[in-house]
C-alpha cells in the first residue's frame, strides 16, 4: 500500500473571471522510503497540490479528488481534531523561506518543544533532551545553547536546519519539502540536501521534494513528476527522465539548462512546444 495515494486531484480558486484550475487532475503516490520530486515552474501547481494534502489551503479553495489516502485513511474525511493530530506528526512539511516560517517572537527551543509537547505529550526534561538530540542530528553547533536563540539570531541555513528538526521531531512517515533550498547559497544547499537525504534514508521516510531546480532533482529523487500549468506532463524514474524525456515540455526544461547549451543560443520552451500546447498545457 502506498503511503500517500492521490487520484485525480483538482484544486480550483474563484477569480473575477470564473473558476481557475490551479491543479488539474493530478495523480500521484509515494511509498515508504521513496523520494518523489515534483518539478515545475512557478504557477505549475506543484505547491498547491501539496498544500491541499496538508489541509493548508484557505476555505475558498475548491478541492476535489477521486481518492486522497494517507496510510489508507481518507484525508478529506478527517475531522479538524483528527487532522491536527496527523499533520505535524505523521506528515510534516518544510517551506521555502526558513526565516519567515519560524515565529520571530519565540525562541527556537520553544518552537521545537511545542511540537513535542502537543504531539508526543513529553514532559519538560524529556522535551529538552529530545530537542538537543534533534538539533545535534541536524548538525547545529552548540545545540543546548542554541535552544535559547531567536530566529533573527541565526542565518538562513541554520533556520532551515531548525525547520527540518521541527519537521522530523515526531518521526514523520511522510515529509514534504517545498523548495527547501531555493533561498539558500549553493554550499549551504548541498549541506541541507545531504542532511535531508541522510535523514530520509535513516528513518525510511517518504519524501516529496517540490522544486524548480533540475539539479536538485538529479541529486535527490528516485521518481519525478513534471508539472506544467496544473497538469502532470510526465512521470518517470529519475534516470529515464534525464536520459530519454518523453514529453516535449520536459525536453524543453532540460535543454534550457545552461550547462546543456549547444552552440550559441539556449533553447527555450517555444522551440519545443507549439503555441497551443504552451497555452493549454496538453500532453
Amino acid at each position: 500500500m502506498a503511503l500517500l495515494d492521490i487520484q485525480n486531484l483538482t484544486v480550483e480558486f474563484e477569480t473575477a473571471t470564473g473558476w481557475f484550475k490551479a491543479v488539474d487532475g493530478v495523480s500521484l503516490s509515494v511509498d515508504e522510503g521513496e523520494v518523489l520530486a515534483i518539478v515545475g515552474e512557478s504557477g505549475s501547481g506543484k505547491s498547491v497540490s501539496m498544500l491541499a494534502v496538508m489541509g493548508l489551503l484557505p476555505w475558498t479553495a475548491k478541492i476535489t479528488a477521486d481518492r486522497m489516502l494517507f496510510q489508507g485513511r481518507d484525508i478529506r474525511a478527517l475531522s479538524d481534531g483528527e487532522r491536527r493530530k496527523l499533520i505535524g506528526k505523521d506528515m510534516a512539511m518544510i517551506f521555502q523561506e526558513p526565516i519567515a516560517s519560524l515565529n520571530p517572537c519565540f525562541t527556537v527551543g520553544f518552537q521545537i518543544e511545542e511540537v513535542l509537547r502537543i504531539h508526543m505529550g513529553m514532559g519538560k526534561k524529556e522535551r529538552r533532551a529530545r530537542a538537543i538530540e534533534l538539533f545535534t542530528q541536524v548538525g547545529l553547533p552548540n545545540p543546548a545553547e542554541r535552544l535559547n536563540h531567536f530566529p533573527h539570531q541565526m542565518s538562513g541555513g541554520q533556520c532551515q536546519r531548525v525547520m527540518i528538526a521541527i519537521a522530523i521531531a515526531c518521526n514523520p512517515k511522510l515529509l514534504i519539502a517545498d523548495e527547501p533550498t531555493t533561498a539558500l547559497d549553493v554550499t549551504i544547499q548541498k549541506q541541507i540536501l545531504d542532511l535531508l537525504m541522510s535523514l530520509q534514508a535513516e528513518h525510511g521516510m517518504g519524501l516529496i521534494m517540490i522544486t524548480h531546480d533540475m539539479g536538485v532533482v538529479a541529486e535527490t529523487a528516485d521518481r519525478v513528476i513534471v508539472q506544467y500549468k496544473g497538469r502532470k506532463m510526465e512521470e518517470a524514474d529519475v534516470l529515464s527522465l534525464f536520459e530519454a524525456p518523453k514529453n516535449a515540455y520536459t525536453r524543453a526544461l532540460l535543454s534550457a539548462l545552461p550547462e546543456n547549451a549547444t552552440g550559441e543560443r539556449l533553447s527555450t520552451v517555444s522551440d519545443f512546444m507549439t503555441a497551443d500546447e504552451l497555452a493549454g498545457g496538453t500532453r
Partner: protein
Amino acid sequence: MTATENNAVPMLEIRNIKQDYHVPQGLFKPEKVVHAVKGVSFKLDAGKTLAIVGESGCGKSTLARILTFIDQPTAGELLIEGKPVDTRPGHLSAEMRRKVQIVFQNPYGSLNPRQKIGDVLGEPLAINTKMSAAERRERATEMLVKVGLGPEHYNRYPHMFSGGQRQRIAIARALMLNPKLLVLDEPVSALDLSVQAQVLNLLADLQEEFGLTYVFISHDLSVVKYIADEVMVMYYGEAVEYGSREAVFEAPSHAYTRTLFAATPRADVESIRARIARKKANA
C-alpha cells in the same frame, strides 16, 4: 575614440577597491568596522563579460554599487575607458552616469507600480536629454520591440507583466541612454528556468548589437559558465580567483572555488547513475 584605442584601453578597470562599513554597536561601545570589499582589482575589455560569483555576504553587490557610482568606495581607483572617475557626490559628470547602467535582481521591486512602462523608459531621456515628448515616445517604443515586447505594452503598468517581461523592461530602461557598461546584479536568479533562458539569449543578442560590456553578478555557476568570458570568485570581500572562464572552470586554484564547484548540483546522466549506484550499495 578609434577602434584601435578601444582595444588597447580596457572599458573598465578597478584598482584595489576597498569598501568599509561602520556599524554602530550602541552608545558606549566602539563602532564595528565591516570590510565588505577588501582590495579588489580587475580589467575588463569592451564587449566582454566578466562574471562575479560568490555567496550572499561576499561583497559582490557592494562591488556592483561601487561600479555604478551608487556608493563611493573607501579606497581605490575606478577607471572607465582609461580615465579615472571622481566618484565623490557632485563630482560625477552626466556623461559618466550615462555610460554605466544597472539592472537589479528583483524585477518586482525595481519598477514603480504606479508608473506606466512608457514613462519608465522615457524618464531617463527626460532627465538626461533635451528630447521632445514625441521623440522620447518613439525611442521607448523602439526599445520595447528590441527587448522582445511590443508597442502595445507602452501604456501598461508593471503589475500587468510576468517576471520575465518585467526583467526585459528593466533591461530596456538600462539601455535607453545607450550605455557602454551594464552591471547586471543577479538578473536571472528570480526567474523560472525557461524564462531565464530567454533573458540570457536576449542579453547575448543585445551585447552583440550594441557592443555592450557586461559585469554579470551571479551565484549560479551554470549560468556563469554559459555567459562569461572572464570569471572572478569572491569570498568574504576578497577576489580569491580571477581568470578566463576556461582557466577557472578547468583548473580552479583556490580551495573555495573547488568547494563551490563541488556543491553545485549536477544534472547529467552519469552523475545520476553514480548516485543511484551509491544508494543501492548503501541499502
